[in-house]
């Protein structure tokens, strides 16, 4: 079967999956207790009944739940994710799109660091098991694996921003003296360093350990011995024979990583005051902003579905034994 057909079929099967995601999340969000009216009107206000009714009607909260659900699904199918409760009636899609680029940059960088550095370190450690390098990689890996991302973020802020003063505490740019041109790029990059480390820490550790384990396993297989017996240079044995085979489980994990990175961005973006989608979800949650929460969850689900699709494709490329079926 062709690549195109495979992709198309996977995309079509994603539709009922998305509908299920919307339905489950809609139900979960609405079943959770707490009324958004307090955040919309504010705590200092006098709650006169007529006003509360008017506000409920303005946001469609006065209609029966099943009606709200059906109209939501109908509109969402046309790409209209409704209006935000918290961000005074602004379209949800617009609010999300304004945050998406920041999260995309953070995610891509975090992903790249985790995969590239993880594979490099893992392969490196596997070369001489139980050497000093390997032990160091193991300890660092274990730490990275066990420190929660937000805690790592706090430590990074305290060490590198407050104490050493090398990098900014948070935000995405210097708002006091905004730079332009290359200065702006540099400024944005400086603001990304710590969040990327905090976000990728766990996955970097995971992939390092996975690559190491997988490499050690592969290096003991017969075909490696055969390759060495053929007189291939050790470099080629490592790169073309061992690593390529050792990477298969790593690719599977890397596919799931996208979803976990997105989840991690909620905490990391909040700690670093970084204006991305993760923090938006946190804000929406606190404010009981139902449409915004659902909107972010849909965008996240689509991203994860696409990431899994890409993983399958990459898997097929690396391992020709896998056929697209």
């Amino acid at each position, binding site marked *: 079967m062709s690549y195109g057909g495979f992709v198309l079929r996977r995309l079509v099967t994603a539709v009922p999956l998305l509908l299920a995601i919307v339905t489950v999340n809609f139900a979960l969000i609405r079943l959770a*207790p*707490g*009324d*958004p*009216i*307090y*955040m919309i*009107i*504010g*705590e*200092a*206000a*006098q*709650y*006169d*009944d007529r*006003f*509360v009714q008017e506000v409920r009607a*303005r946001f469609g909260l006065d209609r029966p739940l099943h009606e709200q659900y059906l109209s939501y699904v109908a509109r969402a199918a046309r790409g209209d994710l409704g209006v935000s409760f*918290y*961000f*005074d*009636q*602004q379209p949800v899609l617009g*609010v999300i799109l*304004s*945050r998406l680029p*920041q999260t995309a940059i953070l995610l891509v960088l975090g992903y790249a660091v985790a995969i590239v550095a993880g594979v490099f370190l893992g392969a490196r450690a596997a070369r001489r098991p139980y050497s000093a390098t390997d032990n160091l990689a193991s300890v660092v890996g274990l730490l990275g694996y066990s420190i929660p991302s*937000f*805690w790592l973020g*706090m*430590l990074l*802020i*305290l*060490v590198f*921003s*407050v*104490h050493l*003063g090398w990098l*900014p*505490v*948070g*935000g*995405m*740019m210097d*708002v*006091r*003296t905004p730079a332009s041109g290359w200065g702006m790029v540099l400024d944005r990059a400086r603001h990304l360093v710590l969040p990327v480390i905090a976000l990728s820490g766990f996955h970097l550790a995971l992939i390092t350990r996975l690559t190491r384990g997988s490499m050690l396993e592969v290096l003991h297989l017969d075909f490696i011995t055969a390759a060495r017996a053929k007189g291939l240079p050790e470099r080629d044995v490592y790169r073309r024979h061992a690593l390529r085979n050792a990477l298969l489980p790593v690719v599977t994990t890397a596919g799931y990583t996208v979803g976990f990175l997105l989840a991690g961005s909620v*905490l990391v973006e*909040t*700690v*670093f*005051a970084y*204006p*991305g989608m993760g*923090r*938006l979800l*946190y*804000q929406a949650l606190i404010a*009981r902003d139902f449409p915004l929460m659902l909107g972010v969850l849909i965008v996240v689900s689509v991203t994860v579905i696409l990431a899994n699709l890409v993983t399958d494709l990459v898997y097929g490329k690396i391992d020709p034994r896998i056929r697209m079926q």
Partner: protein
Amino acid sequence: MTKTLWAAALAFVVLTGLAHEVVAQQPKRGGTLVAGTTFEPRQLNAAITTSWADHVVGAKIFSSLLRFPEKGFPTPQGDLAEKWSVSPDGKRLTFNLVRNAKWHDGKPFTAADVKFTFEQVLPKLNPNRTIFEMITKIETPDPYTVIMERTQPFVLFYFDIFNAGILPKHVYEGTDVAKNPANLRPIGTGPFKFKEWVKGSHIELVRFDEYFKPGRPYLDRVVFKFVPDVGAAIAALEKGEIDYVPRWVPLGDVARLKSRPGIEVSAVGGVALAQSRWMTFNVRDPLVKDLRVRQAIAHSIDTAAVTRIATGGQFEVAESFLWKQFPEYDAKYSTTARFKRDLAKARELLDAAGLKAGAGGVRAKLELLTHTGVGDLDKTVEVIRDQLREVGIDVTVKRVERALAFDMAKDGKFQLYIHSNWTAGPDAATGVQRFFVSDNIGKPIGNSGGYLNKEVDELTEKALGEANPRRKKELVGRLQEIFLRDLPALPLQQWVGVSAYRSEFGNVTTHSADGRENFEDTY
């Protein structure tokens, strides 16, 4: 993220204090102030909101007729109104407006803008619109005079006038005000004009050169940076990335920040809203409805000790339902004096209520509803639980998320309830009454304890309409006497928002509603 985690993270890192040179405190022109706020505003139209996040930014862009500096509270200061006067019967208010005010788009400001805002916007879209609905007539005999009339005296109206930012008629007339794009790119008459809102990151305001007060403001730019985690905001303040953290400095950080050179800590700016923390009793509950049980609880709690332990002495003890700073406050109605800690008496009262000590000395089991997210509230609740245990009242703490706590309280699903802080100002009658009048039973953020007293309803009605300060004090006093007798709630603490700013700046916290200064004289 919790305060504790930050403290623990801090313990990991050795901090060296950097010596900062304190700059001479003379107002000077120029400069940028970066404020870090935990909440991003919903929108910026200052006439259709009561949200703190909206007002903190909106107050710099929009002017009101009157302002309320902390100094001299509760006497207002003129803003867009140069002078104002009240008719002898209190039902007619006349404002003489400044003549040189301009909108940020260059159009002149006139009485027509005030009339439009008070007729077309406030009584329709402001969450406290009932107050504005009571205005029966607004006249503008000339472009710089506004006369408002009501059938009842305007006694409690001044602060609401401050709450109402005046909108430009030429921008809003004939549009759907709630959805007007100007709500996100506002045009006001205030000292700073809107420049840019980078969603999720910051809002930038720049000096309005044609502001109607000559020579003001001093600052060139004001930037509001949104920092959801207050611990991160404090770190940014210490590093100098942020200059000002309004209202939400955690009490645990206060001592450290105070000792740090280059940073000023200020608790100025809470009087008008008079945030109070009290314990609400659900008087419909079979146990709590017995007055003797409520009295026993009051006699078991040492509010001074609770406040000292839980807030490190940052909050004052609430000695009555009114803030001590209010003109109607009278030590005669002090709850702390009436209900001194007296465990023997508490036990006696519990005995009389039929709650004898059972196994392990336990006389009664009660559930205390509270909400998450406020460190000093957690501690307050814990100390109270310990103190009540001493008389055999076994308290289970039910700690839920804020929005859920509101819902449970509204439906009366609790026995005891402590909310972090209620807005109990700006007036002795308006602020406190909504929590105790029978009309507000079952309403959100209303009379959650279900306290029902006709006399309270009548006295409140009278106090709300009373223009004479002496008679009003008397009426409010009678209300307090009834509260002392019936004990529908027990006052605990006067909650204050603590702000911190870098000492290069001056006149930062000046307003009686913290965070809502307009920065016109900040430098």
